[in-house]
C-alpha cells in the first residue's frame, strides 16, 4: 500500500507530501505519524505541503487534528510551503488552522521548531 515517508532529523520528524492526498492516505499518514512521534520521542513535526495544489476540507481538518494530537504527545507541528491558492481556498472554507504554526519554507520551519526546542 502507498505510504507517505516520515523522515527523522534529530528530534524532529519531517513529512513531505509529494503526491495527491486522498482520504485513506491521509488517515494512514496520521496513524504512522503518531506512532513515530511516540517511538522516536520527537519534539517537533514539520509537514511540507509545497507540492500540493489542492487541499480539501478533509485534508485541512486532518492537518489541524494532527497538530492537536501531536501537541498532546508533546510535539509541536509546523506546516510549511502552502501555495497561495490553497491558502485562499482554506480561508474560504473557514479552515484557518488556528492551532497550527506555519512557515514559508522548510528552512524557516526548521528554524522555528529549533527555536522553540531550545
Amino acid at each position, binding site marked *: 500500500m502507498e505510504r507517505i515517508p516520515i523522515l527523522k532529523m534529530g528530534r524532529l520528524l519531517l513529512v513531505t507530501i509529494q503526491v495527491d492526498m486522498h482520504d485513506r492516505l491521509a488517515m494512514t499518514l496520521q496513524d504512522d505519524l503518531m506512532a513515530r512521534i511516540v517511538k522516536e520521542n520527537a519534539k517537533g513535526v514539520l509537514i511540507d505541503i509545497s507540492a500540493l495544489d489542492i487541499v480539501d476540507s478533509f485534508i485541512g481538518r486532518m492537518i489541524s487534528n494532527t497538530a492537536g494530537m501531536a501537541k498532546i504527545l508533546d510535539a509541536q507541528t509546523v506546516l510549511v510551503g*502552502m501555495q497561495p491558492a490553497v*491558502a485562499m481556498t482554506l480561508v474560504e472554507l473557514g479552515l484557518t488552522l488556528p492551532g497550527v504554526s506555519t*512557515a514559508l519554507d522548510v528552512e524557516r520551519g526548521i528554524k522555528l521548531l529549533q527555536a522553540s526546542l531550545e
Partner: protein
Amino acid sequence: MNKDGLVVLATVIQQYHAELLDGWLQRMLTGAIRRDKTAENELSQQASQFLPLLVKAIEGGSTDSIDGANWDDVRHLLTEFSAARVRQGFSPIETASFVFSLKEPIFAYLRVAMASEPLRLIEETAATSSLFDRLGLFTIEVYQKTREQIIFRQQQELLELSTPVVQLWKDVLALPLIGTLDSARTQVVMESLLQKIVETGALIAIIDITGVPTVDTLVAQHLLKTIAAARLMGADCIISGIRPQIAQTIVHLGVNLEDVLTKATLADAFVIALKRTGSSIHHPQREG
C-alpha cells in the same frame, strides 16, 4: 407582415439609390452637432454600404425580426458603426439617428412609387417604419453594450491599479489599501499579497488602511480573511493606519481584531516589523 409590401421597399431602395443616399446624408448632416470633412466622408461611405446590405437582407427572407441569418451583414455593419461611435464620444441619440434619419427619404419615395394605391402605401409605410425602429433599437443596444464593456474594462484596470504590494525592507511587505474593500477586491488583494509573499519570502506584511474610507463588518471580515490566508503561508500581518473614527466604528460594531496586531501609523508598524525580523535602524548623528 405582408411579404410583397417590403419587396416594394427593396425595389424602391434600388431604384432611387442615389437620391435616397443624398436625402439621407442631408438629414444626418443637418442634425449632426459636430461637422468635419473626414466624418462626412466616413458617414457617406457607411451609408452607401448600408443600403445594398439592407436590400439583400429584405430579399433574403423574413423581415418580421432582424435576428435571422439574412440580417447578419446588416447587424454586423450596425455593430461596427455603433461601437465606433461610442469610442468617438457620440451620444446614443446621434448614433441611433443614423438609422432613423433614413426613414423620411424612404417614405417620400414610397409615396412616389405607390401613389396609385393609398391603402397599400399605408401598410407599406407602417411595415417599413417598424423595421427601421427595430434597426434603430439594435444600434442603441449595441451602443449600450459597448459602453458597458468599456466600463467593465476600466473597473478591471482600477482594480489592478489600486492594489500594489511593495517591499519595504528585507522580509517586510507593505500593502497600502485605497478605496472600499468588497469581495472582488479582497480576492485580488489576497492573491497579489500571497503571490508576493512567495516571491520575496517575506515574514511580515503590513496592511495599511489609511486610504480605506469606511470599515464595516464586511470589510473587517475581508481583512481578517486576508490575514488568515497570509498566516497559513507563514507570514504575520500588521494592520496600520487606523483612523480614530474607524477605531470607534470597529469597537461599536463588535468586530474582534484582538488576534491581530494593530498600529495607528505605518511608521509604528514598520518599527515592529523591523524588530521581529531582527533588523534595526540607527541614527548616528543623534547618538553623537
